[in-house]
């Protein structure tokens, strides 16, 4: 297994440790689950703060509505449920009771994207960016590694408004390298710099993009790799800066090609009038192929070799 897909911690485990740390100093923190404490690996939180975990059973609509009620009374609810159910089954509650009502509900979609792999399309969440980007007032964050996950959770706790955090279940290596500084999750980060090609990635595709860049470097192609955890609002300053500098730009995301980061970047670039050779990779408009997460992503062009090949093709 290569370096950036090598086992570190799953972001879910960061979720539990960070929430316990926050809860130890903030009595308003609440964790709400829909029988998802096991899949969310929240056992330690449940044991340490049994009175602050509100279990709603397998009922996502009620889960989000109850969270809105708690938030309106000063609580800081973190709603934790598989992204596929949370952002689809409870979408109207997210729209009305969270977005429209402006309640500070922290939505955490776990096992997101195609994390469940061969469990099939019922368990994939590849329309969550699209759905939530179209609801006013809800930032959308997809952390690439444990550092970004912790920063996103801390940002959510510190923000007096709604926020959606999307976490996968795969163990992730650190993409930010050894640093004592917290990651500034509100902004995109250039993880490496090169003038030939730019790869903008979000969530669990970032590590793959880094591997592609390493492969490209071996052949003399220098890539800029950007981790863009905020799918919304878009860090256009970083996007434009990279796009003006490179010979081609690729956006890679674990999401439908419709309504996600790729379309957001394309629209921003066109509006700004920045001409750049551009490709957006995601799950195309077809019934998704079944298989393990990394195999499926590679099938759709989001693998180290596939990304590197596309980059070379763009530069011809």
């Amino acid at each position, binding site marked *: 297994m290569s370096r950036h897909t090598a086992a570190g911690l799953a972001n879910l485990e960061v979720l539990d440790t960070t929430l316990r740390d926050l809860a130890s100093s903030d009595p308003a923190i609440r964790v709400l689950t829909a029988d998802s404490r096991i899949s969310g690996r929240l056992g330690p939180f449940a044991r340490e703060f049994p*009175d602050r975990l*509100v279990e*709603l*059973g397998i*009922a996502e*609509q*009620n889960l*989000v*509505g*109850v*969270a*809105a*009620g*708690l*938030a*309106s*009374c*000063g*609580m800081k*609810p973190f709603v934790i449920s598989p992204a596929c159910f949370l952002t689809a089954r409870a979408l*109207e*509650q997210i*729209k*009305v*009771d969270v977005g*429209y*009502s*402006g309640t500070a509900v922290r939505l955490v979609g776990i096992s997101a994207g195609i994390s469940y792999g061969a469990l099939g399309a019922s368990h994939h969440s590849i329309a969550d960016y699209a759905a939530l980007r179209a609801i006013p007032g809800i930032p959308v964050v997809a952390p690439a590694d444990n550092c970004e996950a912790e920063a996103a959770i801390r940002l959510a706790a510190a923000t007096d408004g709604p926020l959606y955090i999307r976490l996968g279940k795969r163990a992730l290596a650190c993409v930010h390298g050894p640093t004592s500084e917290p990651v500034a999750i509100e902004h995109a980060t250039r993880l490496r710099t090169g003038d030939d090609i730019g790869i903008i990635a979000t969530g669990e595709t970032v590590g793959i993009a880094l591997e592609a860049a390493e492969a490209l470097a071996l052949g003399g192609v220098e890539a800029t790799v950007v981790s863009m955890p905020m799918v919304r609002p878009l860090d256009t300053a970083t996007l434009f800066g990279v796009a003006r500098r490179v010979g081609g730009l690729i956006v890679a995301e674990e999401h439908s090609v419709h309504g996600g980061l790729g379309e957001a970047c394309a629209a921003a670039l066109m509006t700004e009038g920045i001409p750049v050779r551009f490709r957006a990779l995601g799950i195309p408009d077809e019934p998704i192929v079944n298989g393990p997460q990394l195999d499926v992503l590679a099938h759709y062009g989001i693998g180290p070799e596939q990304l590197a090949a596309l980059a070379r093709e763009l530069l011809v």
Partner: protein
Amino acid sequence: MTTCDDEPAGVDLAVRAAEYRLDVIDLIRSAGGGHTAGSLSCLDILTVLYERVLRISPETLRHPERDRYVQSKGHAVEALYVVLAGAGLLDRALLGTYLRFGTNLVGHATGSVPGIEHSTGALGHGLSVGVGMAIAGRQNGLGYRVFVLLGDGELAEGSVWEAAMSAGHYRLGNLVAIVDRNRHQIAGSTAEIMNSEPLAEKFAAFGWTVHEIDGHDLVQIEHALSSAPTVPGRPTMVLADTVKGSGISYMEHDIRWHHRVPDDEEYALARRDVENRIAELRGRA
């Protein structure tokens, strides 16, 4: 028809409820739209809530210990606007902006209007929000109660039953739900569109204490809402039998008035109904 005891205070409240009916119709006519009959069916309940039950005032609209009211049947917002204005919680001048461009006073309850706790309009949401408010109240050690008004057509939404289950599970004695059981919805009677009965048995089975009352009897409404919970540690369900279009003779039981706007002739008839009712109440006092 609104009924009350014959004590002056009861008569005054009934007169006010009658006057509110005309206010609702004035509001709906002012903009040429609104949910007419469904606002009238819950008007007596709202009048009692805001005049006799809820611990809330213009000074305590944001106080942590205030009682909460969530109107899950958000389409009957015209009744809520009128009652909020009558209670001094909403600037009456804002009623002139109802349904106008740029207004906050839209056709469903929205939290951006002073005095409205939470935005509703999509049915089946309010009880969950109320459950959250009730859990927060208990965990924060605050003594407020949470009231949620639902329509009976709304009970076909599955999310209502998710919320009902969780209220029973958490034994939320500080939660009071009221069903405006007017037995009608847009396309027909609830019995023919989707029968939700027997509601008393269903909510009891979900762990609620259930009271069935005449939803136009102000004394019964006040008693049911003020005494809750009669069984500590259980949420309270008040099934209020009401008449859609209540108080305006030709609207009662007629589903065409779900969101029809009275013309001038119909308005004159409505005014006559209300004036007759007030004269009758005053004569009795």
